[in-house]
């Protein structure tokens, strides 16, 4: 590296001089390009070892020439020196490139004007130099044209510096990346992921980054897609993640040790020819999405969260629980306004209590570096078993399979506030409404959740509380006006019919939870839980009375079995039928850039068995015409990411879009290589418009 520094000093030393002779070849004037060979020296002084020369290229507007690593397509300039005299060696030095993008393909090169410095070593230090360069230069606009030029330049014995040529060469030499070791910049993380699908580069610059870019080189057969570049630590940290595009035909092994990095920022450029590799990739700086939100922003997002929470009440997730509350409210007609108010306030408190548990859980999970997101507890078999047990008991009770008379009175409290005593049932109803709301998403909710999850602890607490307030608003309304309850019909014989309807609704919920559990924990665990719960119901029902005194003990055993068994059974492999059912491809992030570079449009659907909003999108939009046929047409690749079970690849993908919940849909295409994210609730128009927008190839220069 000392070698290069010496060389730079060598180039930079020519700043002023006399311009007696023009040290330049005749210019080659092509239709798109003007080329000249220039030298800083006007002549060869005695005992000269090196001459600094340059290939000066001027391009018409819109035309590009390529860097030594041109990207997926393109070709670097080539020079053949046959016919030169007194020439021992020529070293081409490459100024830092600019990134170009067309049809989603990344290219690196130069536009307008560039000088490629040439370090020339003489064979004889006391003889004239004859340069004879056959230049082959590929330039592209929306057409690629090879420019061929014969450039000759003779330097007789003599001295003097051509100031114009010298300053052109010196400027270009300053753009040639210097060694990173000689700069203030330090690489803090360079790592490939285990699957070889991405490279993360993290570097510190004490002076701060402005608009950094990263150009990795990894030999032929491996290219890099568009980088995701983020700044952190008061702009002193740059974090870049680049997808690796391996050739799908040859599938070359990644030769990590051949990695070479070039980092640029404005006119600054450094070269790391052999960076030290780390085992693990660092996470992107969180400060990107919410850099310490101000009070006003926090409050406005909190308002959005309240609206989101309120809308959640009419999403299908919460309806079964509302029905429980409704049933108990009808019975409460005869109660005193104070008791009604207390009951509804307690429900609202139940909602909030669960939201706080969720906030605490999220903070703890984030502290431990675990994946966080909305509704992720539904990926946990134990949580599902617990929820299933309670919903099943509720449903069985509603359907009249048993009356709860357990000595502890626990079940009585859970099943409703029919008695005038405790508020436990009201509290539980509220908490349940909140628990069941989490697998649903609603308009506004995603914005609020994303803000909270990426923010400070205080953001999480405030936003989750606001969500809870929104969700509890209907209860709070009744609490404010207990008289509203009297508007409900009087209890009577029809109540039994209503109970059956509500029980059926709950049974439906239980059925759905079984389906979710099937996907999360596999058939064995699900069947074990189902059997245990069936046994429990049977024991609680009049049929189980024959067991006598052993009854409660057996019932507790069955309940425990239902809760603990799922943890002991290893989940089965996902059934492949899920994927084979339609023309959906399995999510593979590395494939996206590849497909887009071939002109395809990729529609990504992140979904999960437990995500009811996803199911609604699927049934109402994605599986229906016109969207269904738009997704199966030529050149459109629908890709599905199933987040039913925990999956780091999907979690990282969501986080890169600043999302922490699903449904999430994004469309990639030649015109939108970075992807166009869609709203949570899809409509045909939104999907079709995004597909059209992403697909239409946009020409960079027309």
């Amino acid at each position: 590296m000392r070698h290069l520094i010496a060389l730079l000093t060598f180039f930079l030393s020519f700043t002023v001089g006399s311009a007696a002779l023009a040290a330049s070849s005749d210019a080659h004037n092509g239709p798109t390009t003007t080329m000249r060979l220039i030298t800083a020296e006007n002549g060869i002084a005695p005992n000269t070892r090196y001459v600094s020369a340059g290939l000066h290229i001027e391009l018409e507007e819109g035309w590009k020439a390529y860097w030594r690593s041109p990207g997926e397509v393109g070709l670097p300039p080539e020079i053949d020196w046959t016919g030169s005299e007194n020439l021992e060696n020529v070293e081409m030095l490459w100024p830092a490139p600019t990134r170009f993008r067309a049809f989603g393909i990344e290219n690196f090169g130069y536009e307008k004007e560039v000088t490629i410095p040439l370090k020339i070593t003489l064979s004889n230090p006391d003889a004239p130099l004859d340069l004879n360069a056959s230049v082959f230069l590929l330039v592209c606009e929306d057409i690629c044209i090879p420019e061929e030029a014969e450039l000759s330049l003779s330097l007789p014995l003599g001295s003097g510096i051509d100031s114009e040529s010298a300053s052109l060469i010196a400027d270009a030499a300053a753009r040639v990346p210097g060694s990173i070791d000689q700069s203030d910049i330090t690489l803090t993380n360079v790592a490939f992921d285990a699957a070889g699908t991405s490279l993360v580069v993290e570097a510190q610059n004490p002076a701060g980054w402005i608009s950094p870019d990263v150009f990795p080189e990894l030999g032929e057969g491996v290219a890099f897609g568009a980088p995701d570049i983020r700044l952190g630590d008061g702009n002193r940290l740059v974090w870049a993640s680049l997808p690796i595009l391996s050739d799908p035909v040859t599938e070359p092994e990644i030769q990590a040790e051949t990695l070479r990095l070039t980092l640029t920022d404005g006119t600054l450029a450094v070269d790391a020819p052999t960076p030290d590799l780390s085992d693990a990739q660092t996470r992107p700086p969180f400060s990107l999405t919410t850099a310490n939100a101000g009070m006003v922003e926090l409050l406005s997002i909190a308002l959005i969260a309240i609206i989101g929470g309120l809308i959640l009440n009419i999403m299908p997730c919460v309806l079964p629980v509302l029905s429980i509350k409704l049933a108990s409210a009808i019975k409460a007609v005869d109660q005193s306004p104070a008791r009604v108010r207390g009951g509804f306030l307690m429900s609202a408190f139940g909602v909030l209590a669960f939201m706080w548990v969720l906030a605490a859980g999220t903070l703890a999970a984030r502290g431990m570096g675990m994946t966080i997101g909305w509704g992720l507890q539904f990926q946990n078999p134990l949580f599902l078993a617990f929820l299933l047990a309670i919903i099943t008991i509720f449903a069985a009770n509603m359907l009249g399979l048993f009356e709860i008379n357990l000595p502890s009175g626990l079940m009585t409290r859970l099943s409703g506030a029919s008695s005038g005593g405790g508020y436990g049932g009201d509290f539980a109803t509220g908490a349940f409404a909140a628990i069941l709301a989490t697998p649903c998403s609603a308009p506004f909710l995603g914005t609020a959740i994303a803000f909270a999850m990426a923010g400070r602890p205080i953001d999480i607490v405030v936003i989750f509380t606001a969500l809870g307030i929104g969700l509890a608003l209907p209860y709070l309304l009744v609490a404010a006006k207990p008289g509203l309850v009297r508007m409900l019909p009087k209890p009577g014989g029809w109540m039994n019919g209503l109970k059956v309807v509500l029980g059926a609704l709950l049974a439906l919920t239980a059925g759905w939870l079984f389906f979710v559990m099937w996907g999360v924990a596999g058939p064995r665990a699900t069947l074990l839980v189902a059997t245990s719960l069936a046994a429990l119901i049977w024991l609680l029902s009049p049929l189980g009375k024959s067991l006598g005194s052993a009854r409660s003990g057996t019932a507790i055993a069955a309940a425990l079995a239902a809760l603990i068994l799922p943890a002991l059974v290893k989940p089965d492999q996902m059934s492949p039928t899920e994927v084979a059912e339609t023309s959906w491809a399995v999510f593979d992030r590395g494939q996206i850039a590849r497909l887009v570079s071939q002109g395809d449009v990729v529609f990504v659907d992140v979904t999960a068995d437990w995500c009811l909003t996803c199911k609604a999108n699927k049934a109402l939009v994605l599986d229906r015409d016109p969207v269904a046929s738009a997704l199966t047409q030529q050149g459109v690749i629908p890709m599905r990411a199933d987040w039913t079970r925990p999956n780091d690849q999907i979690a990282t993908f969501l986080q890169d879009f600043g999302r922490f919940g699903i449904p999430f849909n994004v469309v990639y295409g030649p015109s939108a290589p970075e992807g166009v994210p869609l709203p949570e609730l899809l409509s045909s128009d939104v999907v079709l418009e995004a597909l059209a927008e992403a697909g239409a190839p946009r020409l960079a220069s027309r």
Partner: protein
Amino acid sequence: MQIAVFTDFNCLYCRFLDRKLSGLPEKRPDDATLKAHHLPLLGETSLWAARGALAARQQYAYIAFHKRLMSAAFAIDPDYLAIVARQLGLDEEKLMRDAFGPIAEREIAKSPASAAQLAVNGTPGLLVGRTLACGYVSDGELDQLIRIKAEETSSLPCGVFS
């Protein structure tokens, strides 16, 4: 209607133009014939790709081979050609032989001459009837070229490519 395109596997806009053009014979089965001329301007890997595609034509697998190479975003070398040939179920040895056979050599020698004759100086270059379009053309421009062709009374210059 004869459409000729001068193309190179390593040229970005060629890929997208070829893709667009390959749909034409299907859309207009009665009157559109498409001929691709390989003009490997972008270095050695372009030349390898052109040789491979021309050799594949002798096993009636030109279109599949061409399509495969066009989506390969990486430097194409003999190993690459062999793998693609294997994957498409072609006779690998014959393909590698034909890549330097007389037919491939003749085509590769002829393309630059034809291009020079028509003043096609780069890729992609598109000839629809008697109208030459240099560079990438949009959907609208392609339609326009086809309209112009329909109004022509004679289709003389395409004799070069028969």
